[in-house]
């Protein structure tokens, strides 16, 4: 009732206002709706949570998403910020404008915001659809009505399809079904099959599929109308060598070939770095030749293969590369043939044993023993004990930056945006690495998917028996790691699922005595185990993460114990030289430390600060060189809790530790800690002084730059703060176009003026030049 009273009083006041009262009421009402939205989120006030969940861009986890209020009506830039907590004003409509106009504006905005509230859940999905392909969405519509897409599919696609008609049908089936079956709000914004838009463009019949069934959706958000046309218009202007559908699917033959080089290249300790000066140019060529003739084998470039290490048992593999493409089974057959004592000796190198060591569970070990003893007769293994992975979804490829550019800057600007995609690089590890280091992780995920498809572990292959190689598992690792890096946790979890607890017998080398004669240990990279263990915590199940990490810790400790007792890592009686033993102990200690690190991080996420601090303390034992950083980190934890005194104690410890070492880094660390301490004491002026001092030593320090700017804001110097951040971004966009910096910048733009849109768009342009497709566009708050 008090709220009501307040409102009525303010209504009374309104009559005195110069601005027409009706407008006021409109606005007042408008704000109230915003506030209601705010109330919903009030229960979730924790800053850290909201901070975390900001990273979880993809709405994968609703629990964690609770507090993220970066949900605003598209195209409604001016009033949406109320929901963000930065209560932004709609000042400009009222001043110096005729009331009539402002009122209509307000009316319109209200209408929009109402609309967008109801449609909000659908918006991301819709956009992604539009950003991709009208054909696909048209199809989706037809599915919704008719339920079957097959006839339609037959009509549209196979125009260009070459031999792999069946192959092509299946993935498409998969692509479409999730988007229809899943409720839109939950589905991660998987752009529905980007490939097809490219296919469509090359098919040179885009106008045919201008969707009419699409119209009703367009009403929902006005911004749609502009977008809908863009894919069509921009199609002819595609600059990247965009293969036609047939090219892509024809590639399966081709990628098989190319993939064959990593089948083998990776079988031993060191993967082969394929350095081909002509690689980048040869690939498109190759593709076009494919599309013309579909002749995959002839255009195979020969890669000069360099083996990093002598024991990298490449001989059979490098042979394999130059040969014509072979189905997976055939390659295996080749492997089986190469069973000579030399290869055996080479394969089972020290390095391999050390790195691949793992202790299987009792059950798994029994299976492995029986495989070893009955080498030539089939061993019956329950299907449930086999790992049968497969891609769970098709392309997530897409470029959110480009989508945004289309929306806000128009197609002219969007065309300028050029990033590498899975097609524009070599279809191999080299290309993959290129994509990763250029921060085009989405494309890299795609490329991993293709390479895995070549391994017979592609779409819909989950649940089908599969053969594993070191390479296939490494590819899985990269793909899953990238999904996690992209915050696509749910997708990662889905694809991780067939791997079980990474302890199935077919994930051990012993399971393939013919392929890997004499080799022992797990094919699963240690980092993949870490990833697997860490994943549940991002999905709101930290307990599960802790369980997994604990069992990893036990095995690591056991391996170390074995080593100390003069045994091999897995407890067998292999002779190991002192030198190798030392190296192995070192490796496994650092791995154990890595597990402890993850535990500490997980505990921190669970907000069990006491245990987290303990865990970080134990990490120091394994990584003594990181002591100052870790102690500072613990100090920051206490600062976050609000325990300033204990934080101070830790910061003093850091100063003691760093006292012995000198150098820039430790000096910066000490200053940084002092600044944080002042922050905790609400002394922003002093904190600013220390951050500035760091900049005097190291002017390129992004953290200090950003933090100094934040302090300035709290000191009431918005313009100075903006200047500092803008200067920093302009100075070295390569480095400073970071999510958190941009987030702060956009927040300040919103605070500064109700016309923050232009400035945000300018940021988008800067991002478009420098950043890859993995850029998290949410921080621009463009809606």
């Amino acid at each position, binding site marked *: 009732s008090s709220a009501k009273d307040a409102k009525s009083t303010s209504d009374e006041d309104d009559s005195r206002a110069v601005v027409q009262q009706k407008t006021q009421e409109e606005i007042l009402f408008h704000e109230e709706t915003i506030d209601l939205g705010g109330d919903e989120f009030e229960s979730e006030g924790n800053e850290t949570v909201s901070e975390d969940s900001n990273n979880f861009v993809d709405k994968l986890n609703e629990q964690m998403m609770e507090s993220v209020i970066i949900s605003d009506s598209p195209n409604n830039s001016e009033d949406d910020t109320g929901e963000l907590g930065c209560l932004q004003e709609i000042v400009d409509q009222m001043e110096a404008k005729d009331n009539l106009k402002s009122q209509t504006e307000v009316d319109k905005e209200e209408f929009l915001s109402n609309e967008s509230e109801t449609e909000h859940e659908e918006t991301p999905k819709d956009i992604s659809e539009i950003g991709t392909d009208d054909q696909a969405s048209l199809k989706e519509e037809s599915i919704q009505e008719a339920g079957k897409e097959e006839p339609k599919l037959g009509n549209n696609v196979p125009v260009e399809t070459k031999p792999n008609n069946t192959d092509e049908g299946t993935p498409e089936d998969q692509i479409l079904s999730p988007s229809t079956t899943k409720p839109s709000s939950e589905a991660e914004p998987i752009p529905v099959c980007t490939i097809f838009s490219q296919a469509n463009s090359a098919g040179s019949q885009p106008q045919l599929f201008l969707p009419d069934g699409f119209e009703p959706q367009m009403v929902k958000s006005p911004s749609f109308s502009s977008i809908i046309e863009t894919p069509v218009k921009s199609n002819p202007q595609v600059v990247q060598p965009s293969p036609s559908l047939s090219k892509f699917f024809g590639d399966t033959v081709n990628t098989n070939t190319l993939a064959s080089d990593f089948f083998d290249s990776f079988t031993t300790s060191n993967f082969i770095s394929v350095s081909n000066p002509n690689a980048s140019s040869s690939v498109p060529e190759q593709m076009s030749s494919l599309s013309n003739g579909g002749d995959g084998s002839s255009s195979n470039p020969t890669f000069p293969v360099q083996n990093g290490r002598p024991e990298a048992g490449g001989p059979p593999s490098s042979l394999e590369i130059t040969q014509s493409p072979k189905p997976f089974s055939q390659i295996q057959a080749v492997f089986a043939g190469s069973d000579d004592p030399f290869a055996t000796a080479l394969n089972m190198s020290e390095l391999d044993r050390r790195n691949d060591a793992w202790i299987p569970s009792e059950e798994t070990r029994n299976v492995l023993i029986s495989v070893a003893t009955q080498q030539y007769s089939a061993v019956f293994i329950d299907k449930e004990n086999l790992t049968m992975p497969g891609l769970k979804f098709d392309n997530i490829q897409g470029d959110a930056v480009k989508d945004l550019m289309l929306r806000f800057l128009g197609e002219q600007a969007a065309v300028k945006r050029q990033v590498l995609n899975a097609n524009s690089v070599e279809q191999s590890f080299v290309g993959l690495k290129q994509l*990763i280091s250029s921060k085009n992780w989405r494309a890299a995920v795609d490329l991993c998917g293709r390479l895995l498809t070549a391994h017979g572990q592609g779409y819909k292959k989950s649940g089908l028996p599969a053969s594993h190689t070191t390479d296939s598992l490494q590819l899985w690792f990269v793909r899953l790691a990238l999904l996690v890096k992209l915050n696509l946790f749910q997708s990662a979890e889905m694809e991780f699922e067939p791997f079980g607890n990474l302890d199935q017998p077919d994930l051990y080398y012993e399971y393939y005595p013919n392929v890997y004669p004499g080799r022992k240990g797990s094919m699963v990279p240690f980092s993949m185990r870490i990833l697997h263990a860490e994943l549940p915590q991002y999905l709101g199940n930290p307990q599960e993460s802790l369980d997994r990490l604990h069992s990893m810790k036990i095995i690591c400790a056991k391996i170390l114990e074995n080593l100390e007792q003069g045994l091999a890592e897995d407890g067998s009686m292999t002779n190991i030289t002192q030198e190798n033993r030392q190296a192995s102990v070192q490796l496994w200690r650092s791995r154990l430390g890595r597990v402890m690190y993850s535990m500490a991080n997980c505990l921190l996420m669970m907000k069990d600060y006491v245990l987290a601090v303990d865990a970080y303390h134990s990490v120091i034992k394994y990584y003594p060189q990181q002591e100052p950083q870790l102690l500072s980190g613990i100090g920051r934890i206490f600062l976050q809790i609000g325990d300033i005194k204990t934080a101070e104690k830790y910061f003093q410890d850091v100063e003691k530790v760093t006292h012995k070492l000198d150098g820039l880094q430790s000096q910066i660390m000490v200053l940084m800690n002092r600044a944080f301490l002042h922050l905790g004491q*609400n002394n922003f002026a002093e904190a600013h002084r220390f951050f500035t001092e760091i900049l005097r030593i190291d002017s390129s320090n992004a953290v200090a730059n950003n933090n100094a700017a934040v302090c300035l804001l709290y000191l009431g110097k918005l313009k100075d703060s903006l200047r500092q951040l803008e200067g920093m971004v302009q100075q070295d966009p390569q480095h400073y176009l970071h999510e*958190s910096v941009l987030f702060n910048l956009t927040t300040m733009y919103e605070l500064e003026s109700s016309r923050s849109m232009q400035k945000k768009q300018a940021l988008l342009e800067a991002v478009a030049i420098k950043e890859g497709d993995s850029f998290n566009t949410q921080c621009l708050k463009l809606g």
Partner: protein
Amino acid sequence: VMRLTKPTLFTNIPVTCEERDLPGNLFNQLMKDDPSTVKGAETLMLGEMLTLPQNFGNIFLGETFSSYISVHNDSNQVVKDILVKADLQTSSQRLNLSASSAAVAELKPDCCIDDVIHHEVKEIGTHILVCAVSYTTQTGEKMYFRKFFKFQVLKPLDVKTKFYNAETDEVFLEAQIQNITTSPMFMEKVSLEPSMMYNVAELNTVDTAGESESTFGARTYLQPMDTRQYLYCLKPKQEFAEKAGVIKGVTVIGKLDIVWKTNLGERGRLQTSQLQRMAPGYGDVRLSLETIPDTVNLEEPFDITCKITNCSERTMDLVLEMCNTNSIHWCGVSGRQLGKLHPSSSLHLALTLLSSVQGLQSVSGLRLTDTFLKRTYEYDDIAQVCVVSSEIKQ
């Protein structure tokens, strides 16, 4: 307008790999290049990068509401005589929060007037921040507009108290403090400010080897919904303890003063209202023990000292009778006159008794009779004493 809650630290998601893995050191390099990671310890999740608050968040009673108010000239005209006023309307009052009330002479296009306001929130419920701006355009037209920002102030703590009255005049206060916010809370200070009649001793630390250690151990903070129990011992001050009549009925004990801190030292402070307790009634005449040995020998006399206080409003003339029980035998004359006792005054009485039975014995059987009103007060189970055989004791 933007609420200035404390900034938060950016957390990153570490993805690492080993040198032998397919990406080589790519992932590690990416993390090194990421400005938000901690250099040298990239796997550490908690970074150093500050990020501005993303939403209004919650505000709790006792916290300070800080807000940035920026008036920005979006137009291309210079405006004059700008007056910015920020008021906070609560359910009971309206407060002016603006730092200065002077008008700014002019505001050029794309310039702004900044103000950071602070206000310690003292009321629960709906608050409305009213920002009013008045200015004069170039054409001399006077313009005025206002914006309203509504927020709810919530209760951060739940405090429950319980009193225990000791046989002596001490009072023990047990206070349960529950964190009902959604974030961890560091309790910087929880103290009892006693009323003028009491001295207080905090019983929340344990002395170990000269160092006082908190009973809450290393856990210095309260997780959401966690509760802590604090214990205080209150002793009446000498001057009030003397006058027995003063501490009677409902008395004011004092109030709890709680200071907490949350994210990056965001501070909050609350005081409870005066805690009151019902002092135990002692009837007209109160008999309390001053001294008594804890262990005595069988069949050997021992001394106790009693204090008899007149709690009534009138003068009494008391007669003491001592009745033996099965085990307790009083020594001395029963039925002796104690003389007149004025209101709120007391007398001390030394008595001798012995026990004939071993074990834990209850001291009972004292009778006081007020000869004015012919009223008898019975005192049984005054205290307990352990009786052992003299051989054992030696």
